């Protein structure tokens, strides 16, 4: 029964080791499974990437030994190093290479002819590198004998070491490290503009009695529904080389900082707006009443009450926007021109130059500002929550004709900016051949004749969206449940919480690259996942884990802490409680999580750009690839398909929330 029975009789009371219940064990099992998921999908890949950034590769000529038989028996063994000292065929700086480096063995034999009858022997002295015969890898330390015809196909492979060499190379290559400055500049500038614009918008929505608030809220959220590179395409149509209103730029080029900043403002605007609106909504009306009673002017009230009240929201919004911009890759790829940014560098290093180590180095460099912005944001958010609980009376605006009109005009201007860019894309998609044939047509929707995977990529994206929404919601909710509702296991739960917060700080591109290193390793038992839909789902769920997790945790925190205790006192297993109480009560949050995951799976480029395969091409990536190939109009058309799909998904979500919730949430109506 209990182990207290076997305790020797002593003066002190027996120490009790609690017996775990079946539920406890199930919960711990769950926690381990989901913890394991996060370790495999996050911690290990990141570790693989970090170690990659410190891996250096070089040809160790001392490690290869040759023997030659020109018909008179085998010569004495001689190292490649010794041969090279005589011949000087491989220069010292050529010895450093990447993990992909190959060096033909024949270079050490100037008189080599594949028709000769000369025979060669080759061995490694230590098993630290390898050589290839054709595509067969030989890594042992035996002597291997080759006819000359075979010998010409032998290449030496580098041996690896750990060190800071990659970083040294990075910081001594101006073309590379200048991107740091560029990225910081663009991110800072975009942040300032977005936060100011969003603050004005939130202020108008919150503090005025202007009309059409609902409509403007909807419009402001639209950018979330499209890939971040879509505004880039719109800007090309407006201000590009053949742009409609190119003249407005007075000769400046849209390809570069200007385009990136405008596009960044567009796609980060809703994110900033949500945070700032929340901050304004919680500020206390009592302070305003006090200000009014002190006859403070509107202007003074604004600076002494509004701004300080919303400061945490503003700071938090700033860091979130900064993070989004500095880690975004699609937009600068489309409209950045020659202007290099960190995220694009990673892409170029990996896809363009196949230099994975350098890609890893840039990733590490990019992680630093991202982690920094993330930690500040977390810190600020905590403070805001404290502020939230202490405050109570919500602010109710009073009509004020002139002020309301100013607010409305402002929102109209911002609204035109947002709707305008999306409308331009739709227009571009429908024009036959800009700017020469302006008739409307659907030719641009014939994706199957273009690069990028055709309509199949669109259906893959929908699949990815649905799988991500389903799998992600289950994983996230189960994970949040076990951390919130298990007692004890403090260390395990803290570790889990930490892992759950991490993804927000990890740029999608970095995560994707980390996945290459981890899952594409032939030694990894999960290697089979590589290049499947599965890895796309895992990567997308992981990439968007944090926000979903926080949504679930917030919902679970609102549940009475004692439900589990009551259920166990009534001898009911926890899953009965979960299915008949927890899930129904949290249904609004669960629906929110799934729509969030779906929409993001539809629009994400950065997390999946390194991971899609010809069988799993995706719509958002098709936009990028078609744009890259010069098919800008079809790219716009595909972008709009994503937009409409997300609109429909949102409508379904709305419908479900209204109807399903009416049934399951009847108890909310008193």
């Amino acid at each position, binding site marked *: 029964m209990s182990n207290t029975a076997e305790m020797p009789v002593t003066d002190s009371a027996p120490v009790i080791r609690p017996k775990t219940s079946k539920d*406890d064990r199930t919960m711990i099992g769950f926690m381990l499974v989901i913890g394991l998921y996060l370790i495999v999908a996050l911690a290990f890949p990141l570790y693989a990437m970090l170690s990659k950034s410190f891996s250096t590769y070089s040809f160790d000529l001392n490690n290869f030994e040759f023997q030659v038989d020109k018909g008179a028996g085998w010569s004495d063994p001689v190292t490649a190093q010794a041969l090279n000292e005589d011949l000087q065929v491989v220069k010292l700086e050529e010895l450093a290479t990447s993990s992909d480096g190959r060096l033909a063995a024949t270079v050490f034999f100037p008189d080599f002819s594949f028709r000769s009858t000369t025979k060669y022997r080759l061995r490694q002295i230590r098993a630290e590198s390898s050589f290839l015969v054709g595509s067969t890898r030989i890594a042992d330390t035996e002597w291997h004998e080759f006819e000359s015809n075979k010998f010409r196909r032998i290449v030496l492979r580098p041996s690896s070491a750990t060190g800071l060499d990659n970083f040294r190379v990075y910081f001594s290559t101006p073309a590379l490290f200048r991107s740091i400055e560029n990225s910081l500049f663009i991110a800072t500038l975009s942040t300032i503009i977005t936060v100011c614009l969003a603050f004005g918008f939130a202020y108008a929505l919150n503090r005025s009695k202007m009309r059409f608030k609902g409509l403007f809220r909807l419009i402001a959220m639209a950018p979330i529904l499209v890939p971040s590179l879509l505004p880039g395409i719109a800007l090309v149509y407006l201000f590009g080389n053949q742009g409609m209103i190119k003249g407005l730029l007075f000769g400046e080029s849209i390809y570069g900082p200007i385009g990136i900043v405008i596009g960044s403002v567009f796609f980060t605007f809703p994110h900033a707006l949500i945070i700032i609106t929340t901050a304004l909504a919680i500020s206390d009306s009592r302070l305003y009443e006090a200000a009014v009673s002190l006859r403070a002017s509107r202007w003074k009230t604004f600076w002494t009450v509004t701004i300080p009240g919303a400061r945490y929201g503003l700071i938090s919004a700033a860091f979130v926007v900064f993070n989004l911009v500095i880690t975004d890759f699609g937009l600068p790829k489309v409209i950045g021109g020659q202007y290099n940014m960190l995220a694009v560098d990673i892409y170029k290093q990996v896809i363009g130059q196949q230099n994975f180590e350098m890609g890893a180095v840039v990733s590490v460099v990019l992680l630093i500002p991202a982690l920094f912005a993330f930690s500040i944001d977390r810190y600020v958010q905590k403070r805001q929550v404290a502020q939230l609980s202490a405050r109570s009376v919500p602010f109710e605006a009073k009509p004020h004709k002139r002020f309301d009109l100013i607010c409305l005009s402002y929102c109209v201007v911002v609204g035109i900016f947002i709707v305008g860019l999306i409308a331009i894309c739709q227009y571009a998609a429908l024009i036959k051949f800009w700017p020469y044939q302006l008739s409307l047509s659907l030719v641009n929707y014939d994706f199957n004749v273009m690069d990028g995977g055709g309509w199949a990529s669109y259906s893959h994206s929908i699949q990815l969206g649905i799988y991500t929404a389903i799998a992600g919601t289950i994983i996230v909710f189960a994970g949040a449940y076990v951390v919130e509702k298990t007692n004890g296991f403090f260390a395990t739960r803290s570790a889990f919480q930490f892992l759950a917060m991490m993804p927000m700080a990890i740029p999608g591109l970095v995560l994707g690259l980390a996945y290459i290193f981890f899952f594409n390793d032939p030694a990894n038992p999960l290697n089979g996942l590589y290049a499947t839909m599965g890895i796309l789902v895992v990567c997308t769920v992981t990439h968007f884990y944090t926000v979903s997790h926080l949504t679930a945790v917030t919902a679970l925190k609102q549940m009475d802490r004692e439900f589990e205790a009551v259920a166990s006192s009534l001898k009911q297993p926890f899953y009965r409680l979960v299915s008949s109480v927890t899930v129904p009560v949290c249904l609004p949050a669960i629906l929110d999580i799934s729509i969030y995951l779906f929409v993001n799976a539809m629009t994400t480029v950065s997390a999946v750009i390194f991971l899609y395969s010809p069988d799993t091409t995706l719509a958002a990536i098709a936009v990028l690839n078609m744009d890259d190939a010069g098919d800008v109009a079809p790219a716009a058309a595909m972008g709009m398909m994503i937009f409409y799909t997300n609109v429909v998904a949102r409508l379904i979500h709305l419908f479900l929330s209204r109807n399903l919730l009416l049934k399951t*949430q009847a*108890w909310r109506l008193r």
Partner: protein
Amino acid sequence: MSEQQAVSAESAKSYLQIDRLTKKFGDFTALDEVSLEVYEGEFICFLGPSGCGKTTFLRAIAGLDIQNSGTVSQAGKDISALPPSERDFGIVFQSYALFPNLTCERNIGFGLENQKANKADIAKRVAELLEMVGLPDQGKKYPAQLSGGQQQRIALVRALATSPGLLLLDEPLSALDAKVRTYLRHEMKLLQRRLGVTTVMVTHDQEEALTMADRIVVMNQGVIEQIGTPIEIYREPSTLFVADFVGAMNQIEGKASSNNSVKVGDTTFTSREHNLQTDSPVIVAIRPEDIVPHREGTSSQGVFETGDTENIFDAAVEDMEFLGSFWRVSLNNSDFGDAVLIADMSINAVRHMTVEIGKTISVEFQSDQLRVFPPNTNTV
């Protein structure tokens, strides 16, 4: 208090034995070797100030936060290490923890639903339970549609639905307003007595404990100060803490002068027997109702008449407050320093003795109610 039917130790069977329970949160000891025996059918109250460890104690008994050491046995079975699901109890929390999305019926039926009972039986039992707490037609409503008092009763019958051997209540009435609280106090006590279920209730409200409990466990800073019937706790507090926490108590600093007398200033009082060293500092404690107006040789309503002149002294009436059924009189005597003594006097006594503000009257400390404690820093 008249309806006390204390289940006495001799007549009843011991149901719950708690032996030297210790619970620590990190370095902080929330419960320090507490022991308690609860008899079958008994209503026990844990009483003490907020943070003294009452909830911790209750949760340890429930297995929700299992103790670090010490044992719990229920109905002859050692349950010390068992998880809550393997113990036999029903519980009501301060928040009630009613499932908001389930109707009251389904809340009550929650614990019955998978005990292989058929639907009709469950419905019958639920109806019976609703009837029992006087809410027969509220079953179809959601908890949010009920008043606080109704929610409390739903939570109570949910806990009782499976007929547990032990009922645990953690401040079940504290979220209610005073009137409902007084009413439910009575109802719950009747229900408990009718069902005969052994009950442990946590409260910080002394009135609640005094009116409802068969025995009260007074707790302070993780230890038990005293266990006893309400009368014992009130009349025979074993520590200054208990004396101070339960009911009002006048406290006067003095010095022990023999084993049944105390010197305060120039006055010497006869008290109960105590074994404190002569000349050691002590606290003299007396309840307001035990300070009675005194007039020699006369015997009439509410005025105490004793032959001797012990424990009688003069005091100035500083203030008088009429509290409906009695007067609360503030008295002052320069011997006692600045301390104001509170005396509760019957309306008759006040009229008879013409007690008035500004007047000096003669009062008596009843020697058998005068208690002496060593000075204690652990007072509330």
